[in-house]
């Protein structure tokens, strides 16, 4: 295997990892604050991709407007599902909420299928030629994808670490009981959390729609790799979620060079297994100690 192929695979892994970092961050934020793994994350992405396409088909306009529309739609659906489903289950076990989120995932996917059918769609963008640097190929579209993802990630990290809302989110993630005893109203934080999580899934879905063919199962099939990336980075660590999914995606793309695309997921999970055997808390997670 020549190094140029490996370099191209790494670049592709970085691009896919960066766009999946958005929903991965949504998973880790929801897990840290609402305290359950949200299985509807993938289907919120799918909704974002379909909304982008629908916006282009029916409203015309630029891709930027379509992507913003997708973010708004998924944020709205995410909030609706919070008020309708997850808020009522807030005091129930995390298993109950996980199962409810699987139900939400099916509902979202079925609704998409009802309106859009099983046909394949693509986001309408002008074809562009890749830049070629001695065999290393970089698509300008990929740079836009990475740029958009980076800006969104930077924004959310600024909110989390530089604003009162972010402090409240981190406080609730640290200790919900102490947060309440500090006067923090969890409900307001939850509304912000679910809006951000939805918007990030929408953006991730729209960017994925630019990179891949859009199908109703698009996001659902990415759920396990996204969970794996979050676990690899360390559950509950926002930085870990981003670096974990990027690492996992690079591992998948490089693995596909050696074992073919069919087995790349298996090899990536093997890498995940090895990392977790050596470091069970993930790359950036904290070890859980018994008191």
């Amino acid at each position, binding site marked *: 295997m020549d190094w140029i192929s490996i370099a191209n695979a790494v670049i592709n892994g970085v691009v896919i990892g960066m766009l999946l970092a958005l929903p991965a961050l949504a998973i880790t934020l929801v897990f840290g604050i609402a305290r359950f793994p949200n299985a509807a994350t993938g289907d919120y992405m799918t909704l974002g991709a379909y909304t982008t396409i629908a916006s282009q088909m029916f409203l015309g306009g630029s891709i930027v407007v379509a992507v913003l529309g997708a973010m708004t739609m998924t944020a709205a659906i995410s909030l609706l599902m919070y008020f309708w489903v997850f808020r009522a289950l807030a005091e129930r076990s995390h298993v109950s909420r996980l199962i409810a989120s699987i139900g939400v995932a099916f509902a979202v996917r079925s609704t998409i299928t009802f309106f859009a059918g099983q046909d394949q769609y693509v986001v309408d963008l002008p074809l562009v030629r890749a830049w070629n640097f001695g065999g290393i190929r970089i698509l300008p579209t990929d740079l836009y994808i990475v740029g958009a993802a980076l800006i969104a990630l930077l924004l959310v990290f600024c909110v989390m670490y530089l604003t009162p809302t972010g*402090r409240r989110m*981190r406080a609730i993630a*640290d200790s919900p009981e102490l947060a309440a*005893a*500090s*006067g923090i*109203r969890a409900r307001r934080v939850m509304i912000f959390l679910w809006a951000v999580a939805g918007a990030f899934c929408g953006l991730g879905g729209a960017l994925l729609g630019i990179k891949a063919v859009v199908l109703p199962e698009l996001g659902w099939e990415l759920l396990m790799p996204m969970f794996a990336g979050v676990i690899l980075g360390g559950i509950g660590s926002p930085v870990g979620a981003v670096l974990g999914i990027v690492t996992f995606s690079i591992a998948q793309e490089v693995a596909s060079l050696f074992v073919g695309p069919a087995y790349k997921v298996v090899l990536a999970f093997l890498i995940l297994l090895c990392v977790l055997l050596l470091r069970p808390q993930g790359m950036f997670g904290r070890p859980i100690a018994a008191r």
Partner: protein
Amino acid sequence: MSLLQIAKLSGGYGDVDIITGIDMHVGAKEIVTIAGTNGAGKSTLIKAAMGILPRIAGTMVFDGIDLMKLQIEDRVRIGISYVPQVRNVFGTLTVLENLQVVEHAPGKSARIRDMFDLFPALAGRRGTYAENLSGGERQQLAFARALMSSPRLILLDEPSAALSPALTDQVFEEVKRLPQADVAVLMVEQRARQALAFSDRGYILDAGRIVLSDTGASLLANEEMGDVYIGRGQSQAAMPHAPSTHV
């Protein structure tokens, strides 16, 4: 008039009552200690006062306000603060952020400066994550966090837990200073003898019921009760100037 008045309070987790028929009160600027054997329901009683216990019945009135109708966050708003026994600071937030995150703290910047004046050891560590603080610094931060909202009543759950005798003395000195700042204290403490020595009053809890209440000095003088509930030999050994007698 009492600041906090509790009557016929019962409650617990699930279907089991941990505390039953509790009648007690805390006056303004008073230090009140709840003592008792392990598993007597002391921490449960403190949690009930803060609104953390999932199931309670009875009446709780704070300065004329019915606490039974208030959420935990609203109790902070009306002037009640709580320092839990464990996880009493946000470990993943810095010292400064632990103070900034507290709601219902008018003039927050000035209040934070007040806290750093009150606990100078924290001032130099404002950018340190709370999980990296020493036990004593953590306890100071827990106090500072609880005092940020300028409470009139502070609920302390075992403030000396897991601290060395020297640090315990330091923490108790801070508790003694609270009434000077118009803060009343309701405290659960395993080192009951040491705590009752500076408490205005105390309650002895056994199997979820109050079996005795009196002034701190009178409870300490009650030898029979002291042997059973206050842990005379152990507590005396823990006291800084106690005679070295062992039971």
